């Protein structure tokens, strides 16, 4: 199972921050530091939760179980807002 950015979103980086627009909803979102790292990784193409977790654990001192559950929570939020979708 992989995650990818939907076609309903666009994003822009300003001064180290990433701002996301869901243009079919007209809603705007800001991402925190880890959120930006996940987002940047997803921008490279579809990712598994493991590959996202690798990106985070190589940048932050965090064990992979905690990391996975944090990422899982974030992905659920992003999916709920139609910014990310699941592909097989």
């Amino acid at each position, binding site marked *: 199972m992989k995650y990818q950015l939907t076609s309903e979103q*666009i994003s*822009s980086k*300003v*001064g180290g*921050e990433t*701002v996301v*627009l869901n243009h079919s909803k*007209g809603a705007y*979102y800001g991402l925190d530091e880890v959120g930006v790292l996940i987002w940047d990784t997803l921008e490279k193409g579809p990712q598994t939760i493991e590959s996202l977790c690798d990106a985070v654990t190589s940048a932050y001192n965090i064990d992979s179980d905690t990391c996975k559950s944090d990422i899982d929570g974030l992905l659920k939020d992003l999916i709920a807002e139609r910014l990310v979708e699941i592909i097989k």
Partner: protein
Amino acid sequence: MRHYTAFGLHIHSEIPLPELAEGDPHSTADVCIRTGAIALPPMRPTMIYRRGIKAFFGQDDQASYLDWAGVASFKASGGNELLVSPVAADGNIISLFTVSEALGLILFQKGYFLLHASAVVLGDEAWCFMGMPGAGKSSTAAAFIKAGCRLLSDDLTAITFDEAGKPVVVPAYPQLKIWEKTVAGLRYDMSALEPVSEGVNKFAYQPREQFPTKVIPLKKVFFLHRARNKPAVQNLNMAEIPGEMLRNFPLPIELLKEDSLKKHFFQSLQCAKSAEILRKRRPEGFDNLEKWVETSVREQLIAE
């Protein structure tokens, strides 16, 4: 044909638009304003009011339309053709409605980034003031002008981006409308003001001589409010900026869909890259407003 300049454009018009600066009769028209009958497509109510009249808006493949009951309807196409179908007999009223949202449709078609805001020049910087009606956009601009700053725009502010991608404010036209109580509060010289047809308690300051002719770099954007429970001044989070800009979009919101909404999003953040975007409580009373203005002008001159 009459010839004007506004928003950096040569405008040739069949109707008089006395608010605008006189233009060069030998110029090539960027925008033509003509009168004629308009067949309106299905129209929907908007949240836009002028003189207490609600605007209706519609679109088809070729144009955008505005209809103000009892005043006029407008058809804007191609970013260069504005057709006016007047209903009201008073030419000043027709002009007022032409140079506001209707001309705004043309500017939007030209790709300008538009804000419901007033703007002034401090030294070599453009400062822009936004806020809900009554938050004090025009009064704040009036206070800066009294302190020696030049006017750029009132009500409708148009921003473009220079070759380096930096936001610049395009001088609109030399008119600032101020409330009678602001005239008194800031001790404006009444003899230098004109009464306006929009509301009885409003006056127009028309700085025709000192009006800027070149674009000015946008450096500060203020969202003015009167809420005591919010800080006196704070920077907006990046993620709040596109939404706040959208709330201050001066035209029917239906114009911002898909590609045009994406463009608005990028333009909002493009402004935020070069300009400080602040939420500010409007100083209470005219004395405090003038104190803030004096301090800002002084600090800006030192910084220069």
